[in-house]
C-alpha cells in the first residue's frame, strides 16, 4: 500500500507540473494505463487517489476522477510465433515448450491523459 501511495504521489506530481505550465488550475480527471505485470495494484492506486482527493491536494477537487485502463499481459514466442497470455513461467511458450517467449504487453505504467481547466 505504501508503494501505491508513493506512486500516486509521483503521478500527481507529473500531472501538476504539466498543468502548471499550461496555466490549468484544477484537475478533473486522470487516466492511467496499468499493466498486469507492472507491480502496481489498481485497487491500491484507487485508495491512494482517494486519500489525495479527500484533502484536495495537487489541484484535485472532491469531484476529480481516476480512470484506470488495465493492460493485460501478452507474450509472443520468438521461435514459433505463438501469442499467449503468460502464466507463471511466463517465458515458456505453451505451444512449443521453449523458453523463448517475450513479453509484448503488460509492463506499461503510464499517465495516458488528464483533463483540467
Amino acid at each position, binding site marked *: 500500500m505504501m508503494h501505491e501511495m508513493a506512486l500516486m504521489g509521483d503521478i500527481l506530481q507529473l500531472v501538476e507540473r504539466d*498543468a502548471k505550465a499550461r496555466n490549468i488550475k484544477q484537475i478533473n480527471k486522470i487516466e492511467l494505463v496499468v499493466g498486469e505485470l507492472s507491480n502496481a495494484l489498481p485497487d491500491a492506486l484507487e485508495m491512494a487517489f482517494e486519500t489525495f482527493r479527500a484533502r484536495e491536494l495537487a489541484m484535485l477537487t472532491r469531484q476529480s476522477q481516476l480512470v484506470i485502463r488495465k493492460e493485460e499481459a501478452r507474450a509472443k514466442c520468438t521461435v514459433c510465433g505463438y501469442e499467449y497470455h503468460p502464466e507463471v513461467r511466463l*517465458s515458456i511458450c505453451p505451444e512449443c515448450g521453449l523458453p523463448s517467449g517475450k513479453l509484448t504487453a503488460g509492463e506499461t505504467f503510464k499517465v495516458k491523459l488528464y483533463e483540467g481547466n
Partner: protein
Amino acid sequence: MKINLEEEVLSDNNAAAKFNRDLFEKSKTLVINLMSSPGAGKTTLLEKTVAALRNEYRIGVIEGDLATEKDADRIRKLGAKAVQINTNGGCHLDARMIAKVLPEFNLDEIDILFIENVGNLVCPSGYDLGQNHKVAILSVPEGNDKIPKYPVMFRRTELVVLNKIDLLPYLDFDVDTAVEDLKGINPDSGLIKVSSRTEEGLDEWCQWIKQAYLKCQSQ
C-alpha cells in the same frame, strides 16, 4: 481541456537513475542493487562479501532500511564506507534517494558499491537506481513459492543468490524446482547457491562480482 500526457509514471525516477548511472560510469564504479525479502540474509551476505573482497577492492555500501543504523554499523565494522538511508517506513529505495547520498562517497575511490535495498520483493523491483546489476537474494527457509509468486522481481534481476543452503537438509526446499521456475520466468538469470554461515558458495559469488567488475572497467 484534455491533455494527452503519455508519460511514464516513473519518468522522474528514471531521469534520476540516469543521473546516477552517468556518475558511476565516469568513476568506473561497479554498482550492484541487492533485493530480497526481509530476513533473507542480505546484510550477513554483504558482511562476508566485503570481508572477502576488501583487500582487492575499495568497497562502499548504501544501506536502505525502514529505520535504524544497525545494518550500516555492521558494515562499517569491516572498514568499508557505509551510508544508511532510512526510508521512514517507505518500502523501497528510489534513484533520487541514492542521488542525495552519493556526495557522501568519493566515487573515484570506490571500486564496488553495493546498494542493499529495503527488504521487500514487490516495490523495489520497479525502481531503476542507476545500478549495473540487479541481484535477488532468496533464502531456503522462504520456500519454493517465492519465485513463482513474485515473477516481476525475478524477471528483472539477472542473478539469484540462493542463501542459507546449509539448511537444505532440514527443509522441504527443492533446488531443482527453483531452477526450473527461474528459467521459466527469466531464462537469462543465473543462480548461485550460497551459505553465508558456512561460506559455501561464497567464492562463486565473489567470482561473479569480479567478472562484473572487469566488464564494468572495459566499458
